[in-house]
């Protein structure tokens, strides 16, 4: 088996290059598979195309059928109608064991921009499914991708590479919000300002089944955009204190140059309210809530961007410590996969050689027994056993050498020599 990958990812190429080489839809991928089949008929193909990477895996039985990196780059160039010089320098290529290891790294999210993210597994699986749909893959890529998904599962089970949230919004909602509130669908969420971070947090809250959203605005345009995207209602800035008292969750990203809510103001608001816990996400820099607001009462849970970033960093650090363990698993699985592959490659030759020699010995023994009809069955069996032992002893050194060579890769030269020496075609 021969396997190659030509790829560019977030580490090797800018987004401007990746987006040009990407396959934006399933239909485009299916067209690409048609083109690849026409161009490289002896190869199997799988394309993994995400926002962070574009990778083309190819595999063939015969080494001579493998397309070169230049030929694959030429395919990209013609399919996307791009000059090859525009991206050739950003492309990387791996073959054999390195290509297998690379795919395992990708599937295990070791190679991801966000280490340990889980999305990549479904993206790899989806790529494999589309290749199947486009009749682009075959037994070699099937074995490779199925093993990649198995390795990914193993890494997730045996390491903590995917544990702990590492984005501000997911930490805010998942690590803190969910530990304060059991549910969000009966909560009032107040959004002050309409920054990107507020949007991302609202997206997480929406996944959790968000309740009522109130956007307090200074500029109606931004608030209308949020209201339009997430539902809810826009309220004028003058009503801020009223909504501060009613909200269970407050997300603030005003971009003001000084805190808009101090402790005294918030204390007055809390006195008028029901005294229920309030979860405040101050995502503004500078901060929108004075840190003293957290001390107004025991029901106030105030988190600013530094608190959340600190938690993200801790989670990231925890994941980083798991990389070594994940790499060990990938290394072990790569070696096992390659061993299986090489074993499959040498297996048929060994089988044929063994059968050929035993056939010859059987034929010669039959001749001998016809010439010596006085031999009884015990003598015949003794001779047969002796000849079999001789054949096995003669076969042992070449087979052992083949097996040893197969540990480091398919021994194409040796296999070819064996075929030619013993006429095993």
């Amino acid at each position, binding site marked *: 088996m021969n396997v190659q990958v030509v790829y560019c990812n977030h580490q090797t190429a800018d987004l401007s290059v990746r987006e040009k080489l990407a396959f934006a839809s399933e239909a485009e991928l299916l067209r690409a598979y048609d083109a690849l089949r026409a161009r490289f008929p002896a190869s199997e193909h799988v394309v993994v195309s995400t926002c962070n990477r574009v990778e083309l895996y190819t595999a063939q039985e015969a080494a001579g059928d493998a397309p070169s990196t230049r030929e694959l780059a030429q395919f990209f160039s013609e399919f996307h109608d791009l000059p090859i010089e525009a991206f050739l320098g950003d492309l990387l290529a791996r073959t054999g064991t390195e290509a297998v290891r690379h795919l395992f790294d990708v599937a295990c999210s070791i190679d991801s921009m966000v280490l340990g993210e889980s999305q990549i597994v479904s993206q790899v699986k989806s790529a494999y499914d589309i290749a199947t749909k486009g009749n682009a893959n075959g037994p070699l890529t099937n074995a490779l991708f199925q093993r990649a998904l198995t390795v990914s599962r193993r890494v997730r089970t045996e390491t903590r590479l995917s544990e702990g949230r590492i984005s501000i919004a997911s930490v805010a909602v998942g690590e803190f919000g969910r530990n304060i509130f059991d549910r969000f669908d009966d909560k009032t969420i107040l959004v002050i300002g309409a920054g990107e971070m507020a949007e991302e947090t609202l997206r997480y809250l929406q996944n959790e089944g968000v309740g009522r959203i109130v956007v307090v605005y200074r500029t109606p345009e931004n608030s209308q955009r949020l209201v339009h995207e997430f539902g809810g209602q826009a309220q004028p800035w003058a009503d801020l204190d009223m909504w501060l008292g009613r909200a269970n969750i407050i997300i603030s990203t005003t971009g003001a140059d000084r805190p808009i809510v101090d402790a005294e103001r918030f204390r007055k608001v809390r006195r008028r309210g029901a005294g229920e816990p309030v979860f405040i996400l101050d995502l503004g820099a500078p901060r929108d809530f004075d840190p003293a607001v957290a001390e107004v009462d*025991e029901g106030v849970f105030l988190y600013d961007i530094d608190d959340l970033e600190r*938690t993200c960093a801790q989670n990231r650090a925890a994941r980083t410590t798991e990389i070594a363990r994940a790499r060990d698993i990938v290394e072990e699985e790569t070696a096992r996969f390659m061993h299986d592959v090489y074993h499959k490659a040498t297996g048929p030759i060994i089988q044929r050689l063994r059968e050929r020699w035993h056939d010859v010995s059987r034929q010669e023994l039959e001749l001998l027994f016809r010439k010596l009809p006085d031999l009884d069955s015990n003598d015949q069996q003794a001779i047969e056993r002796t000849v079999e032992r001789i054949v096995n002893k003669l076969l042992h050194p070449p087979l052992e050498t083949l097996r040893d060579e197969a540990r480091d890769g398919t021994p194409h030269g040796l296999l070819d020599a064996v075929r030619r020496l013993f006429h095993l075609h």
Partner: protein
Amino acid sequence: MLSNVTLLCFFASYLCALALEATRLWVKSAVVRWAAIGFASAGFVAHMAYLLTRASAADLPPLLSSTHDWLLVLAFLAVVIYLFVSVLDRNLGFGLFLLPIVVLMVGASRFVNQSTDARLSAVRSWGMLHATMWVLGAAGVIIALVLSVMYLVQHRRLRHKTLLQDGLELPSLERLGRLNWWAIVVSVPLLTLGMATGVGLSLIESPVRNSVRLSEPSIVISLLLWMGMMGLFVWLLVAPRTPGKLVAWRTMWACGFLLVTLIILEIFSQGGIHGVRENGEDVEAVMGHDLSRSESLAALHRERQLARTIRVPQGDSSRLHRGAKDS
């Protein structure tokens, strides 16, 4: 074989389960979790065998048998809850909060009155009702105590903006507060019913024998504890908007104080509330201190059978037994 099970067997099992639960704070492993569940299950089986053996020897359900058995039934219920929650939720650090109470109760049961209270068996249905209400109410109190401690730990963690420690995943404050509220609201009426049936029991017994005196210090302390719980109950109902942390603190103090005081009372007041006094003697004294526990239970069993056969009052059968021993 079941009779060979001792208190130490399941006490040690629960202690091991607790140690393993504590280990989960540092070692996140399914093996450790299942080992903790395994030890607790082994303790649970031994615990059940122990209670059954004692119940069969005394010919009484454990709840009616003695304070020792009653406390063990309470611990048994707590273990059932622990196993149920632990199997359902693999991440929840519930055992770390509940198992110490189980260990405390099993340990305390060693020092409380182990002799059978003959008065409860005399009015079996009332006695059963009284003991059941008390044990369920007390189980509710234990749950409320555990939930309030969990609430305070979770609250502290969130206020200090720290990450969850592995193996110590806790439910949200909202859920803990709600469950805590329900635990108190359900357990206090049960304790009240237990209290009321206890008073009823002593009134029923009073014409025929010396019963528990309502003016005894242990009864007065129990009444005060109950009033404290009642105060908490009423406060929860009339002040629904009270901050959760305050509720948790008050619940923790009220329930913790109730449990600890009851156990101390039972240990140091020679039988506690149910200190059996028949003309100044308890059943154990009546039957002779030289008898071992199993002998005394067996003797009580024989005594009852004899009392049923010759149809004489229980007190007279005690005298018969004493006469037989003297002769």
